[in-house]
Structure formats: structure tokens, C-alpha cells
């Protein structure tokens, strides 16, 4: 987001700490973490499960389920769907982050550009 016309370089370390502890900002950070941390753990686990399962339980993964197409094939293709679904979810959540973020930036502008 553009700095909305505010020069922030004059904020002191204490000012930044104050902003960092404002309830609006805290809720922005916890909103983000609530999505990003589980989503990251999930996609890493889902992706790494592919080499792990193919490598260690090949018998199950090599079972043909649709003509010659195997479980491993479908699991690999599902990674594309997984990536795109997580992308869509994030974009949707991020619209909310943008709204909170705007309020935070607005508050800072009011607070620190007082005459």
C-alpha cells in the first residue's frame, strides 16, 4: 500500500512500538497469522506427503484406480488444485486484511501528523 502521503521516517522507535501495540494492528497480525501459519503447515505437509508416500508405500500409491491412472497420479494432479484453492482463499482473506490495514494507516496519519 502506498504510504498515503505520510512521511513515516520521523516516527521514533517508541512511536512504532505504540502502533505495533494498537488493538487494530494486533488484530490485523493475529488475523494474518491465523490463516498463514496453518495454511503454510498444510501445504508443506500436503506437498511433502507426495514424495514420502510414493517413496515409502509404493504398493498403495501404484494402485491403478481409473484405467491405468494410479493413486499417485491423482495425488500429484490434486497438488495443482490444492495450490490454486489456497491461492483463492488467501486472496479472499487478504481483502479483509486490506480493510484493517487501511484503518491502521489512517489512525497513524491522524495521530502523528497533528499540527
Amino acid at each position, binding site marked *: *500500500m*502506498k*504510504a498515503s502521503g*505520510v512521511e*513515516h*521516517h520521523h*516516527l521514533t*522507535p517508541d512511536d*512504532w*512500538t505504540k*502502533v*505495533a*501495540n494498537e488493538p487494530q*494492528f494486533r488484530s*490485523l*497480525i493475529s488475523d*494474518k497469522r491465523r490463516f*498463514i501459519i496453518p*495454511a*503454510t503447515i498444510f*501445504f*508443506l505437509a500436503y*506437498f*511433502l506427503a*507426495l*514424495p*514420502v508416500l*510414493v*517413496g*515409502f508405500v*509404493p504398493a498403495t*500409491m*501404484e494402485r491403478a484406480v*481409473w*484405467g*491405468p*491412472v*494410479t493413486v*499417485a*497420479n491423482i495425488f*500429484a494432479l490434486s*497438488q*495443482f488444485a*490444492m*495450490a*490454486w484453492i*489456497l*491461492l483463492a482463499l*488467501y*486472496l479472499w482473506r*487478504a481483502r479483509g486484511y*486490506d480493510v484493517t*490495514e487501511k484503518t*491502521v*494507516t489512517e489512525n*497513524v496519519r491522524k495521530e502523528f501528523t497533528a499540527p
Partner: protein
Amino acid sequence: MNAALVMFCFFVGITLVITWWASARTTTSKGFYAAHREIGGVQNGWAVAGDYMSAASFLGITGLIAFYGFDGFMYSVGFLVAYLTVLFLVAEPLRNVGKYTMADLISFRLHGKGVRAIAAISTLVVALFYMIAQMVGAGSLVDLLLPSASYTMAIVVVGALMIIYVMFGGMLATTWVQIIKAALLLAGAVAITIMVLAHYSFSLPQLFTAAANVAGPGGTTTDLLRSGLLYAGQHGALNLLSLGLALVLGTAGLPHILMRFYTVPTARAARTSVAWAMVLIGIFYLTTMFMGLGAATLVGKADIGTHVKDAPAIAYISRQPAAMQPVLNAELKTKQYIVPTQNNNMAAPLLANYLGGAYFMAFIAAVAFATILAVVAGLTISASSAFAHDIWWNIVRKGKGDEREQLRVARATAALVGVVAILLSIGLRTLNVAFLVGLAFAVAASANVPVIVLSLSWRRFNKVGAIAGMVTGLVSSLGIIAISPAIMGIDPAGSATHHFIQMAPLFPLDNPGLLSIPLGFIGAILGTFFSRDAQAEADFDQLLVRANTGMGAEV
């Protein structure tokens, strides 16, 4: 004149016009490194996709799938999923707190020469490894696609063009070259895919049935849908895991990808870039499956292995036992080529030839060259920024000096990086450099990513931790690769492979990631506990606010 050459020259002509247009607009260092931060989110998404869809992906992965089926497709999956790391952890904070380079982000609250210098060195290592792999690949491809050109000539032409794009046109020209090439490459890949599907009457079961019964020599058949054709044996599973880990984390530490996020005006535009890139890259990697399976079933493995002449032939002969060499040299002299090995890099162009004829193949070959050219240009500008912005500007000149000097140094280092890459690529022509791309990803994942993530998320993190993490990641990934099968191995007499060290490998896996990535994280965490930096801890609040709101971001 060769049709591919004509089309390639046409592409070069257009890109030179763009460079001329961009050069008039590149008058400041911000223009040079970041295209004035005026590239739109969608355009940058195409450029990010272009930076990522390298010739190694297009020719290499299509070939791997044609030869090894499912195991080759694992690369495609990893390359796409990797962008979730970029989306969730890196793109937006990087845009919000950095200026031009990865080192800007890391040294935001970890000041000092040491951190910046090592971050710059790590950037240079990744960029150079990646660049040499692409350029050596370009040289070898020329032998296959444009038989009238030589290896050295190809390297010099590619190198000279990339220097011209970057030196004169900066990031603006590099971005538009990348966008055009991404559109051409995607169009080519989608066209081949549709033709493959049309050949199988748009029936997936027909295609998959053919792929499960690919005829081989002597009446054997191969099932390309099964795993284990490439990664088999004792360490097959761990090899796959190590590669997967390096791919999925390494992308977020590739300097030429990171630098792209500085070209857009806001963090929201950076997010849009990743979104577009993920859609385009996903479509592209899905097409690699159809191209690979199409090449295997329609062209056939025997025909993909092709005549090799000049540089690859000389390289091949040099690896043969001394007694064999005169015979092979004589063969090269009389036949102008030898058939040393099956080369799967030709799968995509040969499939294009089968499906669409000579002119379509020429188009695909020209696109492959354009791809190499655009990717090395992106790497050159990221390497030059590490040199000029991090080492020269911030460390040597301590941020003093005028705008004209900055721009002059940036241009000079771009030329220097280009010349070094040309010389190294010519010097390394006879070596197998395929492992360099995997190594670049491993270094990025082990040295860069732990420090990026920890500096953004851990208040206690400090300089000692950052230096320890980057050094551990860098040294361990380089050290482990040196004792891995890429470098160490005992070649049986008459073998077509050659190892630098004739000893049994001490580390069994091809990619060091499985060990070096955890070592990078452990180094960074342990190093942190060796010291305490109150200033860095106090500055964490500022970093947190700025990374998440974009307040005070570079405009």
C-alpha cells in the same frame, strides 16, 4: 536460412527496440533496478512467470517426463507449489520493507557490513550457478537446433544480448522481454498440448492408456504413469524428498524472483503478481505433462535421442577411455556427428515437428532460445544489484555519492557479470552442469530462506544469527554437494559419465536440501542465542508495522 534462426532474429529485433525505448527511461538507479516501481501487478505476474519458466523447465522437464514419466512430473508439481511459500511468506513484506535486493530486507534491522556482504555473496552464488546452467544449456542446444552455429558463438550471442538488454534497458527492458517471452512460451506449450489431445481425439483415457504402454526396444513396454523410473533403488524416496524440499522452499530465495516484487507500486500489486504467476505457471506445468507424454507416445524414445555434433560430441569423446577416442574422433570427422547418448532435451521440439511440421518446430526452437535469453537477463540484473547496490553502494561507498555514479556502477557491474558468465560458460563447456540448477535451489533454500523468514517473524533474531544461518546454509549446501553423487563417484571403464572425484560418494543423495536446509535454520537459531542485540529487538516493532501495512515503503 534456417527458419528457427529467422524467427529468433525477429524476436531479438523486437526486444532491441524495447531496449532502445527503455534506455531513454532508465536515468536513475530506481529506474534501473526497479523500473521506477511502475510495472502493473498483472504485467509483473507475467514477468514472474517468465522468469520461472526457463528453458530448463520447458525442454528439460518435458524431456524428463517423456523419458521417466511420473518421476519427471514431480518437478512440475514442486515448481508450482513453491509459489505458495512466496505468496504467504515473502512477496508482500519484501515489497514493503526492501528497496532493491534481498539484502535490503535482511539488513532492515540487522545493520552492519557483515550481514549485507554475506547476503550479497549468497545472492551472487545462486544467480551465477543458475546462469551458468542456463547458458551451457543454451550452447548445447544451439548444436542441436541450429547446426550452422557453434557452441562458443551461441554463448557469446546470448551473453552479448543479455548485457545489452540489462545495461541499456535495465529492469524495464528486462521485464518486457520477459513478458513477451512468457506469452510466446505459454502459447507454444498450449498449442502443442491441444495438438496432442486432438491426436487422441480429446480423450484422456486414450492418452493415458498410450502412456501406460510405451513401446521400447525389443518389444518391451514402459508404463510412464508409474513412479520409480528415475528415482529408484535404495535412496529413491529420500532423493525425491530432498529435491521436493529444495524446490518448495528454494523458490522464495531466488534473487531474480525476489527482485521482481520491487518493480510494482504496492504490496497489493505484489500479491496480484504472485496470483497471476501461479495461474500461468500452473497452466504451463500442466502442459509439460501433455507435452512429455505426447513426445513419449508419438515421437518415441528412440527418436528423441538424437545426433549430437560439435561441442556435445567433443565433450562426449573427452569422457571416453583413451583407447576409444581416436575411433570416435574419426567417426566425428567422417559423419560430422556421433550418436553418443539419448538426449531428452529435444523432446518438445521434436514433438512440435511431428505435430505441426518444420515451421512449428522452428517456432518452438526460437521460443526456447528466447526463453534462455530472457532468464539470463533477469539473473544478470539481480547479480548486478547485489554487486552494485549491496557491495559497492552500501558497503564500499556507505550510501554516499550521487545518482549518476550509482547508475554508472550498476551498468558497469551488469556488463562485468555478463562477461564473467560468458567466460565461465565457455570454460565449463565440457562439464555436466545439470546439477547446478538443483544446487542453486538448495543454496537459496538453505542460506536465504531461513534468514528471510526468521528476520520477519522472530524478535530475538540478530546479526550473529543471520550471519551464522547464511554461512551454514551456504557452506553446507556447497560442501554436501561436493561429497554427493554429482561430484563423487567411481566411473566404470567406458562409462559416458565423468565425476570430478573418483571415490564412492559420502553423501548418498543428489540434492543436499534434506540436510542443508535444516542446518541453515539450526545455524541461524543457534547463532542468535550467542548474542543479544537490543536495538534489533526494539526495531522489530517498526519492521512488523511496516512489513504488514506498507507504511514508509519505498515509492
